[in-house]
């Protein structure tokens, strides 16, 4: 074997190995862009004014500059919510103490899910309320932001278990309110794989 050939083989092997290594993800901006005054504007979560489990105002100001993972649930949900919450707890354990990172759970059933009831629920599942907010707001507003801003199909359905049909997606939002990724909250493997996406966004947000 000639020296050139050996060299070529070594270099191509190294190149191959490097190509296998996943590159740092350049996360996309998800959602449909809008045209405002002839300019294309990125999809953004609209500003809202709700309260949390302690009846403290929960609005765009609280989330400004925070990377957060959102989900939609209700405390009496007998179908997918416990699985999703188990995975939210998994995320809580992994990112405990991470600055500028929050978990946000919006209740689809504000009539029954009073702040006090949500607080009890949060304590029962072991939520760390220093990083996790349980959000209470007018039903129509919550439904609207779920469907139009977070792209989570959610609607009232008397035939659905618990009275609401909704998806168990987890939505990753950056510090400017842009949707940057999502995972199936009911699928353990999907959520564990999603840690890479969260890490990438946190790294970019520093």
């Amino acid at each position, binding site marked *: 074997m000639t020296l050139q050939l050996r060299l070529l083989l070594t270099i191509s092997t190294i190149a191959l190995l490097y190509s296998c290594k996943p590159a740092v993800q350049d996360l996309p901006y998800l959602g449909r862009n809008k045209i405002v005054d002839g300019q294309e504007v990125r999809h953004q979560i609209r500003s809202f004014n709700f309260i949390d489990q302690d009846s403290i105002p929960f609005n765009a100001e609280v989330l400004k500059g925070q990377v957060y993972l959102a989900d939609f649930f209700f405390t009496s949900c*007998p*179908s997918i919510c416990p*699985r999703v919450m188990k995975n939210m707890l998994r995320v809580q354990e992994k990112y405990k103490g991470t600055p500028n990172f929050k978990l946000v759970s919006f209740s689809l059933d504000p009539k029954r899910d009073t702040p006090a009831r949500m607080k009890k629920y949060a*304590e029962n599942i072991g939520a760390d309320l220093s990083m996790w907010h349980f959000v209470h707001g007018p039903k129509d507003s919550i439904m609207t932001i779920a469907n139009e801003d977070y792209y989570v199909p959610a609607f009232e359905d008397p035939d659905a278990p618990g009275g609401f049909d909704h998806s168990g997606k987890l939505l990753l939002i950056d510090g400017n309110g842009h949707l940057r990724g999502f995972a199936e909250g009911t699928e353990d493997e999907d959520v564990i794989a999603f840690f890479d996406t969260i890490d990438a966004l946190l790294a970019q947000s520093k």
Partner: protein
Amino acid sequence: MIRFFYIALAVISTATLTQCNSTEYPSGKRYYDAYCGNCHMGDGKGLSKLIPSLEKSQYLIHQQDELPCIIRNGIKSTVADSSAEVQLSMPAHPKLSEIEILNICNYVNHSWGNQQVQLNLEDIKDKLKLCN
């Protein structure tokens, strides 16, 4: 050489069989996964204080007579708390047949460290007659 071959064959077949029969109650597991697993989870561990764990469960030992009724009719209980009155409940599954309830009971009773006697269909029918 041939002896080694047969030993290897025996080891492989035993390993395969063990994997196939990961539960003695495959039908029960199927119904459990469909009707119970979303809350009590596939590993029976539930969710913190919200949904009780079924692993080595003392509750399960004490509620053997009520188990079929609990699966069919659910549980409603109200817990008074200083800040709120919270209703903790387990949803009812009125459409489950006696056979399906039997399969779930036997699966749960023999999983995650639980060791109860195997129930038969007559047991389930008798216990269901006593539902409130």
